[in-house]
């Protein structure tokens, strides 16, 4: 089966069900971040009719836009917490499904690196936590062993804990694949459709969106950075408050990739996981993220002072980075709350589940959270019939270590030379059941303009190819306007 099966709903495609509703479904998922996409996939495969409602023109407009892309084992998660369970289940599920979805996995492993005696002193706790979390393969490495593995690390490193199964994934293709699979199995998606209000009649929800009304038996709030606001506006009250916490990153040139093969984690402190040095699936080395409390839920801006500090810290740990050019900078905003843990709240009476405060492990935890939602709905007595032969979805590979589209002939031309993005890839990303809804969405699907030159060579050609495709385009007009 193919795109015939796939429902990207535009406002004028009315569906039967309720006379006044634009769409009706068993489950409405509000928010197209990684969590919403994972829930949509799971519930579609479990046989529910689902609709994902997103306020932006494309998925991944919030917290899921910029993260470290680490697939966490959960070795340092709070013991016995829901987060730990979801991270572990999410991890296992990703390992299980990634090949069938054509999602990449970079088996980097991680080193929790101690650069001081004080940090080393925390190692026993980390080991203990790891064991309690069922991550039993942690092992201690001496300075010599570390430098054997990672010869470019600064030699004032003292020792490290090796986390063999901590890996790196593609942060955008994964949620894209999840939602695509939901759509190819009968799910629907609505974009530019902010949910502003709603009412529950004891059986069904009627959600007001900017595109019209959606009727659903259950609602899953996956609104990330706006989870509390959504609860307040639609459910009537909220049990938590989002405290946005920004993380800035600096991306080094691909020439730096040869300097590092593992993820270098700091010894975690109470407040944050700290600054990480890691390879990306796209072949760069990144340093970040910072942890900065801020008011704004949407302002993912960077600042020179912080970026400069990040670069200095990176060079301190990996001195040869001093010679490496910087490719990009970015920031992501964590949907933190006033408490540390996931804020998953099941409102039985109102058929409403909130997946709130999925702060810093949601890329990994999403698939686990999706299973958790399924469990909660089962407890509530839902009985969906699992699809017997679900459509298998695949997404294009963007990982540097696996064959990319340009390696296959007939691609017409390379549009973005730095990231070797072909015209065939760009064209495909603007079609199909989950086409790019914005330039950013197109970049996340293809990597166009994300490389060294940041558009010096390719933005003209890209502007031409995307002309009139999106509300906000690269070009603002023609010459003779």
């Amino acid at each position, binding site marked *: 089966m193919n795109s015939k099966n796939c429902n990207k709903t535009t406002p004028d495609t009315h569906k039967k069900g309720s006379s006044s509703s634009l769409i009706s479904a068993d489950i409405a998922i509000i928010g197209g971040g990684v969590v919403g996409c994972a829930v949509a996939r799971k519930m579609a495969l479990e046989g529910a009719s689902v609709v994902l409602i997103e306020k932006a023109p494309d998925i991944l407009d919030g917290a899921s836009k910029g993260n470290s892309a680490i697939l966490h084992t959960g070795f340092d998660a709070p013991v016995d917490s829901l987060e730990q369970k979801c991270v572990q289940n999410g991890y296992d599920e990703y390992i299980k499904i990634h090949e069938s979805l054509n999602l990449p996995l970079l088996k980097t492993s991680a080193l929790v690196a101690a650069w001081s005696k004080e940090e080393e002193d925390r190692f026993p706790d980390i080991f203990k936590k790891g064991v309690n979390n069922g991550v039993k393969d942690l092992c201690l490495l001496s300075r010599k062993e570390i430098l054997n593995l990672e010869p470019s690390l600064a030699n004032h490193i003292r020792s490290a804990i090796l986390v063999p199964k901590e890996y790196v994934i593609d942060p955008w293709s994964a949620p894209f694949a999840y939602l695509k699979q939901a759509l190819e199995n009968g799910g629907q998606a609505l974009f530019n459709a902010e949910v502003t209000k709603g009412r529950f009649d004891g059986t069904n929800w009627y959600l007001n969106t900017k595109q019209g009304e959606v009727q659903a038996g259950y609602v899953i709030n996956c609104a990330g950075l706006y989870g509390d606001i959504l609860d307040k506006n639609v459910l009537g009250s909220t049990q938590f408050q989002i405290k946005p916490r920004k993380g800035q990153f*600096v*991306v080094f*040139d*691909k*020439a730096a990739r040869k300097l590092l093969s593992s993820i270098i984690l700091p010894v975690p402190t109470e407040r944050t996981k700290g600054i990480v040095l890691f390879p990306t699936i796209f072949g760069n080395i990144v340093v970040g993220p910072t942890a900065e409390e801020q008011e704004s839920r949407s*302002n*993912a*801006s*960077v*600042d*020179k002072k912080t*970026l*400069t500090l990040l*670069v200095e810290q990176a060079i301190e740990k990996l001195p040869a980075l001093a*010679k490496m*050019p*910087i*490719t*990009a*900078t*970015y920031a992501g905003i964590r949907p933190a709350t006033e408490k540390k843990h996931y804020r998953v709240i099941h409102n039985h009476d109102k058929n409403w589940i909130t997946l709130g405060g999925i702060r810093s492990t949601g890329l990994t935890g999403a698939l686990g959270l999706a299973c958790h939602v399924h469990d909660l709905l089962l407890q509530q007595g839902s009985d969906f019939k699992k699809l017997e032969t679900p459509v298998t979805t695949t997404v294009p590979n963007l990982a540097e270590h696996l064959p990319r589209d*340009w*390696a296959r*002939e*007939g*691609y*017409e*031309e*390379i549009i973005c*030379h*730095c990231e*070797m993005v072909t015209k065939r890839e760009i064209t495909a990303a603007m079609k199909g059941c989950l086409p790019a809804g*914005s*330039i950013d969405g197109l970049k996340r699907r293809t990597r166009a303009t994300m490389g*060294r*030159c*940041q*558009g*010096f*060579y390719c*933005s*003209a*050609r890209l*502007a*031409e190819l995307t*002309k009139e495709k999106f509300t*906000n*385009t*690269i*070009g*603002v*007009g*023609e*010459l*003779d*306007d």
Partner: protein
Amino acid sequence: MINPLKYDNCDVAIIGSGPAGLAAAIALKKQGVNRVLVLERESEAGGIPRHCGHPPFGVLEHARVMTGPSYAKKNIRTAQNAGVDMALKTSVTALGVKGELSIASPLGTGTIQAKRVLIATGVRETPRSARLISGSRLLGISTTGALQSMVYLKNLIPFRNPVVVGTEIVSFSALFTCKKAGIHPVAMLEEKPKPSIMQPLQKAAHLFGVPLFLNTQIINIIGKDRVEAVKVADIEGNIRKIDCDGVLFTGLFTPESSLVSMSHLKLDHNTKSPVIDEFNRCSDLAYYAAGNLLQPLNIAGNCWRQGRKTASFIAKDLKENAHVNLGK
């Protein structure tokens, strides 16, 4: 179209069809080198001048004042007449030892073995991110090269009222492009106390009515989807907000040396150009370099001359060392 994957017995492969690459190719043919293949990743040859729709090009090499595109056309014609082979839409993806090049083209991927290789991949401007500029990631942030390709090749404009950053020669060229495209820059910013090029720039800025702010840098780029304003600070710390719909970063050229930095060839980490000897030869003796890759940013005429000169070194090298097989 030449299929680069079926091109045997290549004497010299030239990466890049800008002024340096084409000048070298023409000179090599004139000096009797048999199989000269230019590899160009774009669908048209000519390099940067292709999208510089303004003069002056060609003064040194053709004794004429030309615009970039007509200059590029002339160079291509001359190369074709000289018997240079050109493979377009052909990206060199890796430099192997002793002249073995990995390439990708819509016809497929593979390798070419050349006796000698000339790297003439040019330069690009430093984008916003590598300058660690504060603010959001928005539409409307561009470089001169990107602006000129949009305007001259695609008839599109990325903004109407940008702030221009930088005061190099190319910034001057950026002002002209804006003028031609009906774009009205609202300010020109220079971090230093003086413009990088004094006379013409101040005059041009004045002429086009663009206020020039010295000792001033961007401290924030603000907007939702597209740039809406920038905040700038001067040396005394005075902050002002300038409404605009774009930011044009000009200059701070850096060699397009990614092939070199990913390869076994030695790179000068300060200049980001390949390390060369007095014959423009790289650390692997099968490789040479020329053009802007070696000295950002020079005018096209000088790149042309350097390409030609390097071609003589290569021709001589091939003649004298024909028996020495550098390749496999």
